[in-house]
């Protein structure tokens, strides 16, 4: 443990400064709100971040410390100590002091956006985050902003109308200047180390401190967005005795471009990574939008998605197809490892004891490389893939000079399809060879049947996606995704 640790966390609950000692690191923001503060406006719908009923908005100072960044997160899986240095805004805070409703709320009333009302506070907070960050959103932006919130009553149409109409109502006076000042006054320097009920939580602020802590506490759980770790506590009832939070380490939040690579710090959230990735690789657009709804994307990190080691994480097939390199750190030492060598077996990675993922290096676009990614699931938004696939081919005339094919959901780890790649490498890029290559997928993978899909469908659709990629690269006017109609 570092010499100087702070055993208090400080944050704003709207404009009230909160200081907490002896915080149980396993306590969620939602539990604290409902049980400790009797603020029952925020609801629990699923305790796994999949319904948005518990959505709250977190405002943080941007890198310059001048402006606020408002983001909706799921309070049900957000651990309380991660609020350190931030502002927490809940549905109870939006009304003006004179009791009049905020435009977000008024528009929901006017447009009949609530029926049973239980999802409403969560929707209101997701809409409020949008209200604070985007001026006149398009319908697609609205759909995306609300993708993490479930409503079972309305069928969504009136909520979408309300989201459009909220901008037409008089805007309340901004309190941002006061909030910026209040956030700056919070004393949040140095490493946080809190302990309660025998459980410890560290939040180092530098990479050096982080690597020391990880080496000294190899059994500690690294926590980034908590969109998976949170569920171990809320759904599996695990007790996490030692947590190291990486979200306060500035070096892990950086996005930089070298001559050859885009470099993302492991703790960069999907929300922050998406625009950069999208600019470089527009082919990733639909996949990224379908990664999850904003309350998850705002918390979840690329590093977490990779290091978690799940066979169904959606970022890996694309990153493997792009030949992404990981930078791993242990103490002062770093090493590089290709992403496709990172996964050893089901939920087992190449990370050594005391080692952690520091950066992700994604090659910059190569005009000769044709890339497509596909995600197959029961629902467009916020669903876990039955199959996720990424294809990157380099053609020399009509001959395959190189191809990288990666799948998720068809094996115990995200994986390339070596036999299929071998059939295609050096072959003519024709429907006939591609059809032959799809047969090789049967040697590459033996998918399982579960609640998301049968083994037959996983195999059949894996083959068809390769075919679909072939058509996309060879037809003059290939069909767009069915999901893009009317968007």
């Amino acid at each position: 443990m570092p010499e100087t640790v702070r055993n208090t966390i400080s944050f704003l609950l709207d404009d009230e400064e909160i200081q907490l000692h002896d915080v149980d690191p396993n306590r969620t923001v939602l539990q604290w709100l409902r049980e400790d503060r009797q603020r029952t406006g925020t609801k629990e719908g699923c305790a796994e971040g999949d319904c948005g009923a518990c959505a709250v908005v977190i405002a943080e100072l941007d890198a310059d410390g001048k402006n606020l960044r408002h983001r909706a997160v799921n309070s049900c899986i957000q651990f309380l100590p991660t609020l350190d240095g931030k502002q927490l805004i809940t549905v109870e805070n939006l009304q003006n002091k004179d009791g009049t409703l905020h435009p977000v709320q008024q528009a929901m009333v006017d447009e009949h956006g609530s029926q049973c009302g239980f999802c409403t506070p969560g929707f209101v907070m997701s809409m409020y985050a949008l209200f604070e960050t985007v001026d006149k959103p398009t319908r697609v932006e609205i759909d995306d902003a609300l993708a993490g919130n479930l409503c079972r009553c309305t069928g969504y149409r009136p909520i979408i109308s309300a989201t459009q109409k909220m901008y037409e109502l008089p805007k309340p006076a901004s309190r941002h200047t006061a909030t910026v000042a209040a956030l700056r006054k919070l004393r949040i320097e140095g490493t946080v180390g809190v302990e309660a009920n025998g459980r410890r939580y560290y939040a180092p602020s530098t990479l050096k401190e982080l690597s020391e802590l990880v080496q000294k506490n190899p059994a500690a759980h690294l926590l980034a967005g908590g969109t998976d770790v949170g569920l171990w506590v809320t759904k599996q009832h695990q007790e996490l005795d030692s947590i190291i939070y990486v979200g306060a380490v500035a070096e892990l939040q950086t996005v930089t471009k070298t001559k050859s690579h885009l470099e993302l710090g492991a703790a960069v959230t999907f929300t922050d990574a998406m625009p950069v990735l999208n600019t470089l690789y527009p082919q990733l657009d639909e996949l990224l939008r379908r990664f999850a709804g904003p309350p998850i994307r705002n918390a979840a990190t690329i590093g977490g998605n990779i290091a978690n080691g799940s066979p169904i994480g959606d970022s890996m097939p694309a990153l493997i197809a792009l030949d992404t390199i990981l930078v791993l750190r242990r103490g002062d030492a770093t090493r590089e490892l290709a992403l496709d060598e990172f996964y050893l077996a089901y939920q087992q990675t190449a990370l050594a004891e005391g080692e952690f993922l520091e950066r992700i290096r994604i090659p910059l676009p190569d005009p000769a490389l044709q890339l497509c990614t596909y995600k197959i699931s029961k629902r467009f938004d916020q669903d876990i893939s039955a199959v996720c696939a990424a294809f990157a081919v380099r053609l020399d005339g009509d001959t395959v000079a190189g191809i990288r094919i990666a799948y998720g959901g068809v094996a115990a780890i995200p994986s390339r399809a070596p036999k299929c790649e071998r059939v295609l490498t050096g072959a003519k890029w024709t429907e006939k060879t591609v059809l032959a290559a799809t047969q090789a997928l049967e040697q590459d993978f033996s998918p399982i049947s579960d609640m998301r899909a049968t083994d037959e469908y996983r195999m059949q659709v894996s083959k068809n996606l390769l075919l679909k990629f072939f058509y996309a690269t060879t037809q003059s006017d290939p069909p767009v995704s069915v999901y893009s109609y009317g968007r």
Partner: protein
Amino acid sequence: MDAETRVSTVGEALPHDSAEGHVSGAALYTDDLPEPRNLLHLAAGMSARAHARIKRIDLSAVTEAPGVVAVMTAADIPGANNYGAMAEDDPIFASDIVQYVGQPVFAVAAESVDQARRATTLARIDYEELPAILDAESAVKKNSFVLPTEKLARGNAADAIAAAKHRLSGQVALGGQDQFYLEGQIAMAIPLEADEMQVYSSTQYPGEVQQKVAHAIGTKAKDVVVECRRMGGGFGGKETQPALIACIAALMAHRTGRAAKLRLDRDTDMIMTGKRHDYSIAYNVGFDEQGVITGIDFDFASRCGMSADLSGPVNDRTMFHADNAYFLEQVNIVSHRCKTHTVSNTAFRGFGGPQGMFAIEYAMDDIARHLEKDPLDVRRANFYGIDERNETPYGQLVKDNVIHQIVDRLEDTADYRQRYQAIRDFNAKTPLQKRGIALTPVKFGISFTATHLNQAGALVHVYTDGTVRLNHGGTEMGQGLYIKVAQVVADELQIDLDRIKLTAADTSKVPNASATAASAGSDLNGKAAQAAARKIKKRLTRFACEHFSVAKGDIVYTRNQVRIGKQHLSFAELVHLAYMARVSLSATGFYKTPKIHYDRATFSGRPFFYYAYGAAVSEVIIDVLTGEHRLLRVDIVHDCGRSLNPAVDLGQIEGGFIQGYGWLTSEELWWNESGELMTHAPSTYKIPTCSDLPPDFRVEMLQSADNREKTIHRSKAVGEPPLMLSLSAFFALRDAVASVSNYRRSPDLQAPATPEAVLQAVTAQKAERAK
């Protein structure tokens, strides 16, 4: 009556009465209520086996776990170990035999929610496994039923089919659906003096919760009060299931003398409580050159789960709605109510009706493909007539038929014929993507089929300042019942809505109220509240006649005012005068639905007061390589009678459609071989999100369509019927799949039509094309 000065909010598109509370977080749900002193938090321990004998239960580690105060099993129940709605086959805690994975076996009370839930994981239960039946088809083979097989027949279907020019048969699997109300099941019980138990329950049926709680703790109905201000969604899932939750809470409160709250987490809720029945459907149909059905035979087998619950009436309604909007002269409908070792299925919006309609629409589609006709023409050819061909298989005359009017209008406004052709042109040119379109009708019978349930009560108090407290037996689950009933009362008394306080459903105020179900909430409670308000108004009028010596005709109630001869009094002034003259200002109101009668033994009579109608056109596109699909455009014309509140009704239509669309396309319940439900949270069970909304969604209410029957202000029930409009989306998908074989083969598309189900059907179509 002075029509010019009369102000009415009936028919106005007013916001939900709790809208401001919803958007500000101020609306209180059961878990938000201030917690009583010393509240215990509960969790239930569940069976890990589908069918087994319990050999031994060791709860010592549970009892010793941190924070645990009490543990209880079936042996600790002082009264009846049963919460079954219609039969005594639903134990609160399984004692000897467990019959589904997730069945409650014991409960834990602890100082915190976390402690209680963690403690349940420490139980050791030894089982002796017994053979488990997990699906309807296996149950039929093994003669495993919760209730006897029923038959509804008219004429001789078999002979008619044999004699028909064309014959077809088919079968299809239709999945179930979880209600997925956003607020999970919850109850809080507070023990009071002299054996009284106060229960706060998220329930559509406070009266049943009251009865079951009294039975369980060994008291009487008079000793139990159940209250529910609002639910965070119900959809039928809170009709019978809340009794289980409330019984556990009350039993623990009774045992410990402390208030006790049981809130199921999402996973437990989905594993432990019932859902929409999934069905296995087979049919044989005979028809003529025009597609007119001359004889049809249906065989329905539904998975009821381990107990009867409401499976009897649910399956009855399947039989009643297997005609949808079509005249079936020679018909034979057989309904098997299968007993399986899975959770007992229960009410869900539509209550068996959707499954019956799905079956006949599937057959309609097949007939059209067989005759190479537009399915709409076949559907039209079979519609009930107005004055002839208008008797249902159960003998009720369809006298209020507006389906022709609705479909005429929709065909026109939706530009159906032109789009039907354009889609065929598109499909001929587009190998990798296919479009499909379908227009399907809805005719849905309104009333509880159990005639005695069609009654309601209300209680209206007027205070001396002229304000009103309104109470009725109906519950608010988001459907807007409270605002509708308030609109009725405000109209009756001619006062502003803000002078009326809407109060929680409460068994101590209105006794013996039926469940808020069967779409009948505003029909029943609106009439009952109107009756109560009329009683008070009559007393006020009689008083005013005497007091001011005027004739009854000289008294006119206008907005917050009463004109008495030439004088104007405020409503409050008149009320105060009446109070001073010792006039009673409180009244109960009662209503029973007229005209209905029904003999369950013969399946004949008039079970329904009237029918609600609607129709929808859906257009979809599918990806032939993956089975992925998207809903592109939906047009709806729906009959709400003279709507009490068009905003509320529009919400029911749109919301019902999308909920049905989820049922038929993305919501897949998946059990593993051990009978464990593996889709028990939103991460694995996928209800629609906002991007599933069709980009072009046009909803219209049938104009100037007064209910023929004297319902409350001539409105029509709207809770359930719109759900079935979503059948159009399923049959549009089926149309798109059919195009893969150039419409030569009627696709075997199962529901839900997930991308996998669509691709499977597409693959079969390709094989046909290759022939």
